[in-house]
């Protein structure tokens, strides 16, 4: 099939995981019934160790190379992030912030989604009158809260996806990576 490009590295990565997990299992079974102290069975603990260590030591740099080389299709991802009612949770949050009890808010948005499915559109495509028929609490500012930027910004807690939080997370993670590098370097 000339059109195909196969994800061999990825598939082998899954395969190597099976193998390393097998090594761990072999070790557990080899040692679980041994009386103290040394028994010749322990000779059989060597190969699973070497196999697990060497499998991963040869794999990791390849995965790192793959990650550096892979091309991400941001446009397609962004498009997918904008459709499929992924702002429904943000819509419900909008209602909650205006005093609607959470359970009712979810029901209201559920009805709005139902309406969209009938009309084959997204929440932001509904007219304000149509929304107000479902409940008077909807207002013009509802539309701005449905935009991708505001949906993302909503998740503004440590560990959340709000851009400022993610920027902070990148800085934190960099420090933790450097700490590992330093420690490994000190052992070398």
């Amino acid at each position, binding site marked *: *099939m000339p059109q*195909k*490009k*196969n*994800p061999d*590295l*990825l598939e082998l*990565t*899954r395969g*190597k*995981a099976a193998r*390393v*997990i097998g*090594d761990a299992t072999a*070790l557990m079974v080899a040692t679980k019934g041994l009386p103290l*102290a*040394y*028994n*010749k069975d*322990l*000779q059989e*603990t060597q190969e*699973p*160790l070497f196999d*697990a*260590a060497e499998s*991963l030591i040869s794999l*990791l*740099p390849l995965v790192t190379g793959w*990650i*550096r*080389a*892979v*091309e*991400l*299709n*941001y446009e*397609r*991802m*962004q498009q997918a*992030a*904008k459709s*499929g009612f*992924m*702002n429904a*949770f943000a819509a419900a949050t909008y209602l909650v912030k205006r005093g609607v009890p959470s359970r009712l808010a979810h029901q209201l948005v559920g009805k709005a989604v139902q309406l969209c499915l009938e009309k084959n559109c997204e929440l932001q495509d509904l007219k304000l009158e149509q929304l107000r028929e479902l409940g008077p609490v909807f207002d013009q500012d509802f539309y701005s809260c449905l935009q991708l930027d505001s*949906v*993302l910004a909503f998740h503004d807690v440590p560990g959340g*996806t709000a*851009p400022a939080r*993610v920027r902070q997370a990148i800085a934190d*993670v*960099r420090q933790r*990576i450097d700490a*590992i*590098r330093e*420690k*490994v370097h000190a*052992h*070398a």
Partner: protein
Amino acid sequence: MKMWAGRFRQPLDPEFERWQRSFEFDKRLLSYEIAASSAHAGALRAAGILNSEELITILQGLNQIGEQAASRESLEDDEAEDVHHFVEKQLVALIGETGYKLHSGRSRNEQIATDLRLYVRVAVDQLRADAAELCAALVERAEQAGTAAMPAYTHLQRAEPVLVAHWLLAYVEMFLRDAGRLADCRERTNLCPLGSGAVAGATLPLDRRSMAEELDFAGPTANSIDATSDRDFVLEFVTAASLLALHLSRWAEEMILFSTQEFGFVHLPEAYSPAAAPCLKRRIRTCSNSHAAKRHA
């Protein structure tokens, strides 16, 4: 000399003798065996078993074995039973009977335990270094992604939008935990079994603390019975490695999904993605299969 010549009148069945050897795989422990043997030789000198000339001769011999091995592509030895036997044989061939003195007051049980701990320690450091670079690559991609968004899935159904960077950092967290587990394992591994003897402790007054120090261990192991039979550190390492492999596998699975035309989030890099096997090759395989089928018919 065979390792246990003396006690028995009958030689080992040659097939069994060959079958039970471990040199074929434990030869990768050679550098650790040499380091541990050098530390043991130092303790023998301090205990008055070796004089300083003998110590120097043994250390030089051990050093030479290491250098010779490094210059060879593969280690072959028709007689060596295991890496310990190999070193002893080589040493005696290089420096004569003094070489046999090295085995005074020690057992292969403590030697293999020590060699394996040294191996695990190096493997931990290597994997941690590799995991750090993997994380660094993911963080770079996260920075490049800026504020680009993608769907996050629960139940493999679109759930909520997230930043692409946020998604990449999820994997970084997993790999950093793996690196942490490996570090924990290193700490418990980093004790020295030398001086434990076969099971009850060395019969010579060996300075266990200085042997541990020489090999950069945090100290000697506490119990000789445990030290000669404990493989927890191997298990701990391979279990931590399994989790790392498991995280890599989850990542790989997600990339495979995301590279399908159905998702189309990821373009597979050509340098790592062979084209599907051309039909010609398949035909040959079918052909040989049918030959095999005929032979069996």
